[in-house]
């Protein structure tokens, strides 16, 4: 019977089935400091061991400072944040888990370093106590976020119980304009299907637009599958995937590479395989996107306006629009391009890879950020992304334009470290969530692509760039 990519990945990892639940084997667990301490504590209390140390890879990312950290963990000024990073270091040492430490050049956001190190490989089953684990599906891996109890379960058993998701195919065809990126596509799709549109589904992205898209772009798209509520986001393996994986530290070599290659080339949905739902998207129609509200589905074209709740017939939706506009201090029918911003954030597991920084740098080159912009941050996704960007001179372009060039980490995406918005501040952000208070209590987040973030920093208000 023809199988979808998701079905293939599930059956390859199936250990056993019981009453409709499947116990699947986990090839890789990525670990960070926020969602793991209670899992390690649970293991200790029950006197349990790690099932397979080699499957795990840890990195601190959420709490790390993006300013000078040459004095190591003691450069984290908040004692509670510092304790969390120290606890990760201690747990990894005690339990014998490979950790990339804060001051290692390979350190970065867990979803950036996984693929970068080759710790994410096609066909793997990958989990992490972080919802954006869907990112890794861009390489044809079965990857999803889990809670801390499940982190502990995977540490102790190497496995996880799963109920099989339904299959959804999103086919995207046509050419994205040069000022439109994978981020705009992700926001556009979420705007169409809603933040619960993918709930219960494994989404596979396909079509000629995806075939043309870089691996970095595919990661951005799969990363935000969770914002559509999906279990996983997937892209079939092709030559771009193979090229990307080749030569990375954890990637196979020699004969092992050849046998891996043979297997990886089978990682696509079979022709005629069954999808429970299919959606077609015309890439030619998509304009740069910006969110106006407090949910990623509250999104419009950059030249669009905030909605009018009076025109919404569904009362629950109308109430959501009123609440969002009230929170975010905007009136109905306001042109997005008339809204001034206070800060700009370029970074996060969605948009902090080299391609993202290049896209922003093209716009920033030779320009200056607007006077009303108090702070424009560029936070690379990893130490290696930072190094490469510096070799290409991108750091200088940003600094000349008035941006701050920082050390890698999650930073202002969720503001667990010192990078946050003050109440009442408005930010153009390349991150993934615009929830109330996400970047700081009482602050306003508008999600955009790196290109639009840079253009907005320069204009001081939401601004597009010519195609």
């Amino acid at each position, binding site marked *: 019977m023809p199988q979808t990519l998701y079905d293939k990945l599930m059956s390859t990892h199936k*250990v*056993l089935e019981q*009453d*409709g*639940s499947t*116990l699947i*084997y986990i*090839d890789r667990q990525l670990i960070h400091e*926020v*969602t793991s*301490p*209670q899992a390690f*504590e*649970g293991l200790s209390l029950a006197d*349990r061991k790690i*099932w397979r140390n080699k499957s795990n890879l840890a990195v601190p990312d*959420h*709490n790390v400072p993006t300013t000078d950290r040459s004095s190591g963990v003691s450069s984290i000024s*908040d004692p*509670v944040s510092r*304790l*969390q990073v120290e*606890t990760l270091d201690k747990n990894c040492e005690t339990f014998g888990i490979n950790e990339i430490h804060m001051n290692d050049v390979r350190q970065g956001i867990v979803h950036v370093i996984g693929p970068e190190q080759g710790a994410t*490989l096609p*066909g793997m089953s990958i989990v992490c*106590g*972080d*919802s954006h684990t869907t990112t890794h599906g861009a390489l044809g891996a079965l990857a999803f976020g*889990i*809670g*801390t*109890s*499940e982190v502990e*379960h995977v540490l*102790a*058993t190497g*496995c996880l119980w799963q*109920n099989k998701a339904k299959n959804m195919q999103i086919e995207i065809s046509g050419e994205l304009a040069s000022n439109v990126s994978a981020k705009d596509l992700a926001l556009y799709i979420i705007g169409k299907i809603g*933040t*619960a549109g993918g*709930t*219960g589904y494994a989404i596979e992205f396909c079509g000629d637009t995806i075939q043309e898209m870089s691996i970095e772009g595919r990661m951005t798209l799969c990363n935000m599958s969770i914002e559509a*509520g999906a*279990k996983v986001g997937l892209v079939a393996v092709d030559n771009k995937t193979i090229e990307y994986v080749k030569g990375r530290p954890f990637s*196979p070599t020699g004969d*092992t*590479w050849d*046998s*891996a290659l043979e297997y990886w080339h089978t990682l696509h949905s079979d022709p005629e395989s069954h999808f429970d739902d299919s959606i077609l998207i015309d890439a030619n129609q998509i304009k740069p996107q910006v969110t106006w509200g407090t949910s990623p589905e509250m999104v419009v074209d950059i030249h669009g306006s905030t909605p009018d709740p009076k025109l919404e017939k569904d009362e*629950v*939706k109308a109430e*959501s629009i009123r609440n969002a506009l009230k929170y975010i201090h905007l009136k109905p029918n306001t042109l997005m391009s008339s809204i001034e911003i206070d800060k700009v954030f370029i970074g996060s597991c969605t948009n902090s890879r080299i391609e993202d920084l290049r896209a922003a740098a093209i716009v920033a080159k030779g320009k200056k950020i607007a006077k009303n912009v108090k702070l424009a941050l560029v936070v690379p996704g990893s130490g290696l992304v930072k190094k490469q960007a510096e070799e290409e001179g991108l750091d200088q372009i940003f600094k000349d334009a008035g941006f701050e060039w920082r050390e890698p980490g999650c930073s202002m995406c*969720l*503001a*667990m470290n010192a990078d946050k918005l003050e109440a009442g501040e408005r930010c153009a952000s390349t991150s993934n*969530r615009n*929830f*109330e*208070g996400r970047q700081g*209590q009482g602050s306003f987040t508008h999600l955009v692509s790196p290109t639009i973030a840079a253009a907005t920093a320069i204009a001081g208000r939401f601004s597009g760039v010519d195609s």
Partner: protein
Amino acid sequence: MKKFTSISSIAMPLDRANIDTDAIIPKQFLKSIKRSGFGPNLFDEWRYLDHGEPGMDNSKRPINPEFVLNDPRYSEAQILLTRRNFGCGSSREHAPWALDDYGFRAIIAPSFADIFYNNCFKNGLLPISLSTEIVDNLFNYNGQLSIDLDKQTVETNDQSYNFEVDPERKRRLINGLDDIGLTLQHESKIRSFEKKHFAKFTWL
């Protein structure tokens, strides 16, 4: 794990769709390395009028009288009644920890986000999906509700509604079973799977 069999309580109505886990428990409280103590910071940004940080004496903070959690009528509520897509966003298990620590035992909504739904079952918390129409009825009802997991029913004083739950999750919740202990009963099967898996995929 904490068991869930049946409860009887009024429901606290939180009339809002798409409530995300950032709202349930804001990020600054995720810096804790403990599993308990999150209850006083449940819905922190809606519940208090000031900015909350870990280590504050929450009993001295100004409360938002407009927020339903601060309505004395619902101070004993063990059931949270809310709208669609509850628990979306971040995978933080601190969200069910905070709901449980506050005293909620069950949540009724038309739908839940996947990771949150799953996390509830690990913590003795029962998420119940009922149709939008039934949830509308319950918002208007405002009386005592009885939830019976074994029978899979939610009852008002004159109505009974059935809900769906995965049989394996139900069994574990009713008996308060330890997930890891149960999985390790299959240890030899996992070992033999692993052997074949690594023989085939030598690069793993």
